[in-house]
């Protein structure tokens, strides 16, 4: 290949020389000193010619190439996000949030297996009580099932009672599943590197919300799917969404005063108390009907407000409890 400006200089010894390009041309190409057309010629030739590649690389900033190589090898060692992570990235969720979500300690297979077991138990309990399924489903709105007694109303009332008894284990437990997951995501015992998180500038509340979101999303999905397996109406899972969120939020809000685990225990106990009271009084609508949903929404908003106001307290509670 002849190029403009090629002098008849002998090429430099030292390595298998390429007969076509002189060292001067390569140096000019590396430094950007060549004119456009000559640079193109060199550029088209070099990639396919091993001696020229080596000679060109020798003229470059070795530390820059080394630095990029070490970052490349680091990136190779990092785990690739799974399908959920890729979906989140596609939805423009920032990369560091996705990485954090994948690292959440509570999202392990053993944990999910435990969740599946609990839900299976609740479903099994439901079928024990109502093995032939339920006709008509539980009445959520309307009068208490212990209303005025007419024969038709008594039958309907009895059916409704059976429906509630069948579904009660699931309805009581389902909001607790994400609650326990949130507390677990935050328990110092389950986060082995919690001291690092404490000593880091990242906001404790933000970290909590990211983890809680991941955990709630992951546990709500099987919980909702389990509802489909129940002998009840298909919309049953939607009834639980607000109470579940309200219970988790209340736990976190209480956590600003007493720590997340204690807050979770308290919130869970309060929920069970509400459900038990509603069952005993035979007024399930209190817990799950329109009145219940409204109450749950109110609790959710109040808890969010408390969290926002007391976010610094949340973090300092953790520092108080840290010790040798």
């Amino acid at each position, binding site marked *: *290949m*002849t*190029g*403009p400006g090629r002098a008849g200089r002998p090429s430099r010894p030292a390595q298998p020389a390429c007969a076509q390009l002189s060292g001067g041309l390569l140096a000019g*190409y*590396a430094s*950007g000193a060549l*004119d*456009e*057309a*000559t*640079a*193109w*010629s060199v*550029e*088209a030739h*070099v*990639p*396919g010619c*091993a001696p*020229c*590649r*080596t000679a*060109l*690389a*020798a003229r*470059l900033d070795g530390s*820059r*190439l080394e*630095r*990029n*190589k070490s*970052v*490349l*090898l680091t*990136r*190779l060692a990092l785990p690739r996000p799974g399908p959920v992570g890729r979906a989140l*990235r*596609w939805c*423009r969720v920032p990369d560091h949030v996705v990485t954090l979500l994948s690292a959440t300690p509570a999202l392990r297979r053993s944990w999910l297996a435990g969740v599946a077991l609990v839900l299976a138990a609740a479903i099994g309990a439901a079928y024990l009580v109502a093995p032939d399924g339920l006709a008509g489903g539980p009445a959520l709105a309307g009068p208490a099932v212990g209303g005025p007694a007419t024969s038709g109303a008594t039958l309907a009332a009895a059916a409704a009672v059976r429906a509630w008894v069948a579904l009660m284990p699931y309805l009581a437990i389902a909001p607790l599943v994400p609650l326990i997951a949130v507390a677990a995501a935050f328990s110092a015992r389950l986060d082995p590197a919690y001291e690092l998180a404490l000593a880091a500038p990242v906001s404790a509340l933000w970290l909590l919300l990211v983890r809680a979101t991941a955990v709630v999303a992951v546990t709500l999905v099987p919980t909702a799917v389990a509802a489909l397996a129940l002998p009840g109406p298909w919309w049953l899972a939607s009834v639980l969404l607000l109470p579940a969120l309200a219970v988790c939020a209340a736990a976190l809000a209480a956590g600003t005063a007493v720590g997340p685990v204690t807050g979770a225990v308290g919130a869970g106990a309060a929920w069970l108390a509400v459900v038990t009271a509603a069952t005993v009084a035979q007024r399930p609508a209190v817990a799950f009907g329109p009145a219940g949903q409204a109450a749950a929404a109110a609790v959710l908003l109040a808890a969010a407000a408390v969290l926002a106001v007391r976010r610094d307290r949340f973090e300092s509670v953790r520092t108080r409890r840290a010790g040798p």
Partner: protein
Amino acid sequence: MTPDHTADLDDASLLRAVGRGDEQALARLYDRHAGWLLVRMQRRCASPDTVDQALQDTFLALWRHARRYRGQGEVSAFIWGIGIRRLIDAARADARPRRAEQASRDSRAAELVQSAEDEVLLGIEYGRLGPALTQLSPELRAAIQATVLDGLSMAEAARLLGVPEGTVKSRCHRARIQLREALT
């Protein structure tokens, strides 16, 4: 440190080894090719940070998609096909903070549209082409460079140059006419 078994392999064998998960082979490919790749990218993109990122992305893509190389053409051309597209992606990611879809780029890495005219252009001694290229206006030269030398499709060249596809086509056409006139 395991003994380096990759020193004597040719590029195609190295790439096959990369496809089998051999990290040392990738490191060896990097040692051979990162230099010219860096210079070539630098000539197209002024930001060193973007070029660094694109350089890493290229070898990362090689690591993940080494098996797409099936012996068609030189390994260096395969690498450049990936590299130029990674460079475009990195430059766009810097211009607009948004993640670009990468999968479609990699799949077209081996596609080079080569018409008979392009082969003539490439086959001609660059010595005679030199002055003719210099006489082209910058936009015509950029269009020819993107489509012929870099092997981009019309759509990709349009995205790179920031002009409509039709403009790229007409510029290439005019550039070819001018070059043909200059050479005859």
